[in-house]
Structure formats: C-alpha cells, structure tokens
C-alpha cells in the first residue's frame, strides 16, 4: 500500500513537472477509459511542448469520430469539421497562414473511408500539414462497425458473419501517394510518437503518421492491447528511411513494424 502510494505521488509530481496542463485543454477527453487515443494525445502534446510551439500558433483540424473530438482536448486553435474533410480544411488553414503549425487528426473511418479521396492529393501537393491517422480498425463513435482497415472476417453487429472486404494498408497508400514523410507508430508507446512527431513537424512538407490504436469498448478480437503489444516491433536496423522502394517493400511485407518508414530529403 505504502509503496503504491509513493509511486502514485511520484507520478503526480512527474505529471505536474511536465507542464502538461499548460498544453492540455481544460476540457477532459470523452474517450473511454483505457482508450489508445490517450497515448496519442500525450505523444502529440509532448511534441508540441518539446518544440516550444506557441499554442496560439497551432491549429488542430479534425473530422468526425472518436478521434475527431481531439481538438476539444488540445490547448490550441481547433477546427472540428464534418466527416472526412479534415485534410482539405487543413490545406486551407496552412496556405492562408504558413506561420501556423497545422495538425490534422482523424480515425480510420474518417481518413480511409469517407475521406479517403483526400489523402492522395494533400500528399502529392506536399502541403506542410502533419496528419495523424488514429487507426483502430473500427467505427467507435457509432458503436462498433467494421472500418476500411478491419481484417477480413471481422465480426461486429453490422457484420455478424464477418467482413469480406480486404483491409487497406494506410502506410503503403501514403508512400505510394508520394507523401514525403511517413511513419507508423503505436498508441501504447507515446514516447516514440513524440520522438517521431518532433521530426515530422519540422519536416517541410506533408507528414503522415499511421498510428495503431485500440478500441477497448467495441473491439475485443483484433487490435486489443494484448494483441498489439504482441504484434508490433521496430523496423529492422537495416531500414533506410531515405529509400522509398525499401519503405514500400517493408510496408507491404510487415504490417506491424514501427518507426519512420520514409523521409524525403529537403533542401
């Protein structure tokens, strides 16, 4: 008892020390306890803080979904838009005022389903926006339907016999669309998210973060914490992030390797 009390006190002190409350909005996240999105939230907050970005010069743009609620929980300017349209709106924000750091956030339904037509174009235009795709392979806010990244056979109330549609590979898509910075990460490792984001935010051009997460409420079969912890692993040491072909091979062959897949050198 005594030990755990001390551990808790230490953690509280660490949190206070981290100045996290100057970054977080006073609105508490509405996500379910245990949701992977808390880890992504922490990873992004820490990256903003590490880079010392002034909050009033940061804009967070989202669509609809659990991830879409993100801007309310961030201590930045926020745009919670309609379903699937975060990327074009973020494009307008960035071009209107290039001084702003612009983040687009959204889930796999928002970004690969209804909004799937926008990713190729922001990538090929190389707009300097940082996009975080929260991929838990399920529609959570509508209480658990299969998403474009759900595996074949995924059973939900909307797919009682299991889905038959093949899942999309968002990392491979971003690479083939010409995104100039592509990373794949895991909500269970906020430090790695921060580290990669710090690099991606400074990248002059579009940066894409494919982040695996859980839906603890509606997905008990696929991307559970246990499964993800078991499945994910770093990219091989030999991976060369300046080699697009190698990045695509890697994305094609191993869907659970994590790290910075590709980074185009900029002048």
């Amino acid at each position: 008892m005594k030990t755990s009390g001390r551990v808790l006190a230490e953690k509280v002190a660490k949190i206070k020390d981290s100045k996290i409350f100057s970054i977080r909005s006073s609105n508490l996240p509405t996500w379910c306890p245990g949701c992977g999105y808390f880890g992504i939230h922490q990873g992004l907050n820490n990256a903003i803080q590490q880079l010392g970005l002034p909050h009033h010069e940061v804009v967070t743009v989202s669509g609809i979904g659990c991830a879409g609620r993100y801007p309310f929980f961030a201590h930045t300017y926020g745009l919670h838009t309609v379903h699937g349209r975060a990327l074009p709106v973020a494009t307008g924000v960035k071009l209107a005022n290039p001084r702003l750091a612009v983040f687009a956030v959204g889930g796999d339904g928002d970004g690969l389903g209804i909004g799937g037509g926008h990713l190729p174009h922001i990538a090929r235009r190389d707009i300097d926006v940082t996009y975080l795709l929260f991929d838990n392979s399920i529609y959570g806010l509508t209480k658990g339907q299969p998403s474009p990244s759900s595996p074949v056979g995924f059973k939900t109330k909307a797919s009682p016999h299991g889905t038959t549609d093949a899942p999309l590979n968002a990392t491979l898509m971003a690479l083939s669309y010409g995104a100039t910075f592509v990373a794949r990460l895991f909500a269970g490792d906020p430090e790695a998210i921060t580290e990669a984001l710090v690099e991606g935010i400074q990248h002059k051009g579009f940066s894409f973060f494919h982040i695996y997460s859980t839906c603890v409420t509606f997905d008990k079969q696929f991307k559970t914490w246990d499964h993800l912890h078991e499945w994910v692993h770093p990219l091989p040491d030999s991976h060369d992030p300046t080699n697009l072909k190698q990045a695509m091979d890697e994305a094609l062959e191993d869907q659970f390797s994590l790290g910075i897949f590709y980074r185009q050198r900029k002048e």
Partner: protein
Amino acid sequence: MPEVDLTIEICGMSGDGTIAAGGLLNAALSKAGFFLMAFDSYPAEIRGFGRCVTRSRVGMEEMLALASETHVLISLDDEQSLSRVPFLAKNATVFFDNRPPSFVEEGRSIAAHVGPDVTLLGVPFRDLTARATGTTRGRNLTALGAFAGAFDLPPGPFHEIIRKKFDPKGEKVVLANIKSFDAGLQYAREKLDRSAKGIFPVPQKTGEETDRVLLSGNTAIARGALDAGLKLYFGYPITPATPIMEYLAKALPEKGGRLLQMEDEISSIGAVLGSFYAGGRAMTATSGPGLSLMTELITHGVMAEIPAVIIDAQRGGPATGLPTKTEQSDLHAAVFGGPGDSARIVIAPTNVSECYGYTVKSFQIAEKYQTPVIVLTDFFLDNRVENVGMPRAVPEEIFDGNVYPDPSLKDRYRRFERTESGISPRSIPGMEGFLFTTTGLEHSEIGVPDYAPQNHMLMSDKRHRKITGAMADLPAPREFSKGGSLKVGVIAWGSTFGSALEAVRKAEKKGIRAGALKITSIFPYHADIIREFMARCGEILIPELNYEGQLANLIGHLFRKEVQRLDRVTGEPFPASIILEKIESLAK
C-alpha cells in the same frame, strides 16, 4: 440621333474563325462607342466540330437583354447558317460568300432560302482573301470588312483591334489580317449597292471614344475577387464556372496569391473554410452539381460561423442536366440546401457590372456575418459579354469585414457569445489568449458541444438573428416604374431581370402601367420593400428560368393573392418578347 438597335450574327462551322470574328466585331464596335451585349454558342462536345454562332446586340444605350430577331447575318458557312434563317427580322441583311467552294451543292446556298424582303449581299470572301493574302484563312476578317464597308463603319477601330489581337504573332500576321479586312471593306464600298433596301448605315457616336471594356460575367467575377484581395482560390473544373478558375490561374499568382485545383468540390469548399478560419480571403466557383457536393460543408460554415464565398454559376439541371445551357434552378438548393436550419446569405447579380460589384462585396459580408455567402449567376450571365465602364472597387468595400474580440477579453474569451446582433467577435489563429475550437456540433458560447434543449434554441436564434441583420448590408430591391399604382408588376432576378425590364419599358410605351422590381438579395430578402411594391400592383408576374418557380415559391406569400408565374426551361435566355406578351394579357 437615330435609334440604333441592331442584332448581328456571325455563323459558321468550327474552323471558320466565327468566334474570333465575333470577338473582334464586339471589340471594334465597343471601341467605336456603341453599347453592346454579346453571347456566343458553340458545340458542347469536345470534338469541336459543329455550328458556331456569335450574337451581338448593338445600340446607343445600355443593352438589357438579347433580342429575339437578327438584323444582320454574316454567313461564313451557308449550310450552318440555314438554321439561322427563321430568326431573321423583316428586311434583314445577309452577307454570304457568293463564290463558295465547288463542293457546296447547288441549292445549299443561303441565297436560295431567304424571303424576298431580305437584302442579300454576296461577297466572294474566299476569293478576295486569297487574292489579298495568298490563303483563304482570313476570310472571317474579309466578311467583317464587308460588313463594315456596307454599313459605313469607320475602319479605324477594326484596324486597331486586329493589330492588338495579332500583335503577339508578329507584324506579318497583323498585316495579313488587316489586308483581309480591307479587301472586304473595299469590295463593299465599290461593288455593293449600298442604297439597296435593308442597308442602314450605323450612325457614328460622336466624341467620347469610350474607356468601356468588354467583360463577361465570369471575368467580372474573377476581377472582383482579385480587387477584393483574394488570397486563395480552390476549385474543380465545371461548366460554366471554369473560366473563373482559368482567369485566376494566371492573374492570382501575379498578385501573390495561389490557386489550387482540388480533387473535388467538397475539398474546394473545405479549403475555403480553412482559409477564412485562418484569416485569408478565399473563394471557390462551381455549378449545380458541385454546389450539391458542397452542401454539407456550407452548412458547417453556417453552424461553425466561418465565412466563405461560393460562386454558383447555374446551368440546366437536375443532376448533370444541360451543362452548356442557361437556367435559374439552383435557388432552392442555394437558399435551403443541406441539413438543418442553415440560413446563409445568397445574392444574385443581374448584369456584368453587378457580377463584379457583388463579388467584391461578398467577401466583406461573409467576414462580418461569419457565414458562407453564395453568389448565384447563370450560364448566360457568365458567358455573355457587355461593354461596361471598368468597374473599380472603392476602399470601403474591400476593408477587412472581420469583427475581432476586444483585447481586454484575453483568456476569458467566449467565441460564440450571444450578442444582440448575433455577431460574436471572432479571433483568428495567431491571436494569443483567444484560443477556441469551432465545431459543427451544436455548442455553447465557448464552443464546446452542448445539446441542452434551451441552448439549441438560443444558438439557433443567434445564428438567424445574424442573417436577418445582414439585410442592412445587402442591396435592396430596386424598382423601375413611374411609381404609384401599377397594373402589372414584374419581379425578376439574375439574367432574366434584363429581359423583364425591357419588356416593362416596351409595355409602358404601349400605355400599360407596368413596373419592374429587381431582386438581388435572394436570402435574406427585403420583405417589407417587396410587399410595399406588390401592394401597389394589380398582378404580380414572376418570370424565371426554372420549372418550379423557385423565386415565386420564396416570395410569393408576400402578395395578397396568387402571383403569376412564367417559368421556362428551354436552356436559352428569357426572351423579353414572351414577358411582354404576358404583361399585355394580364393588363387586359
């Protein structure tokens, strides 16, 4: 000074240089001091093989509409021009090539198909051009020369315009074209019987070589946006709005702005909203099918209180409809389209000058009222050319319309504060201490989701209060009448208004007490002014280019009895003659 009201048509096959000749004719006549309105039609299909017709109405005062009859037909290809014969006015004049190539069959010459009242002026276009320049390519200019010679028009303005147009191609090309023109001019002066019935020399306007410019509605919109300080344009190609994008693609970067051709209309309006959110003036232009795709985000702009400027160049609908034909059938969609009670501002210019002026104004209004503004035009208005005094935006019209929060409110800012006017001061990213999140969910004054029953009532009321208040900044209806009580009052919008006014003026000349009311603010509309006008009218006639009578549906309830609808969906501009007929029958 004699009254001039001439409609001149040039008709040919694609490849004859019909559209080019029409452009030169318009420019030269404008330069010579005439007022004009012109409208071309050419094949919709890309293969580019078909009939081309240019139509110019020329006069000594501002032209309100096209005329239904043609006084002068210049035929560059008789087989095509035969289709224009039914539209010839009595005593019309027809110029045609009387030595066409041998493959034109006997009997296919236009000369065999016109009535005895028509003056036929045969001019060997090809022969003359070939003799003057060695090729027959400039025969369209030879035809123009013959027209100028026969009608005693001074060649000066034509020479000047030809030089200006062909200058980039070098002196040799300029001279060849001038020679082609002169060959026709000289032939007409020497060989044509200019006393023949049907020839009526055009009086030359004295003095005042004008500084009027030829502008289409689309060009006027693009220039208006530029003068208003447009920073970003996002669009997707669609007829008839594309020329706006093409004009800006060249002009906007020259002014330090940027144009992005987006992947669809949804992303176009999305980026416009993002840009205005971040404080940058942006615009998109589309037509009905694109407007419908934008609808959800337009209502997002209404709910989240973000400005936007959207041009909707209407064409025939529904669905893909009639892409190259004119119609006014997006009014319902523009005013009411989308989920929920999403009142937004809709304005509709009636002529080229207003296309410019209302585009300029729309930016300020969108900013001030923090809401999307839709500017409704139509195919005819977009593509017709008028020579107008070069419009210029006055500084008051282009000032930043944003209402910013008071600096003293730093750190206790309520973005969606319910003020009396409904306008809540808006911060822009970059302002310290004024962070907020905007959302399409119903929200509280600080902008967090709030579905409480009372809150939705209060916030809906705030947003609608704002739109009602915008009426103060929107152009009021304008009456054209001798005042007092009227037998027939005609209310019209968009390009149909010109036809309505022309019809009303003709009715007045026939002794009918008629009046016209121009409505340019479609939503919100000035109900009091419209009601007052209606109260003085025995009958209200609303002509419009749609099947459902969309303006009549919107404002008809303001009249004490049923309004008279005159709905047409032929794809053509509204003929003034049909409105006049209806006025006459109502006045009986």
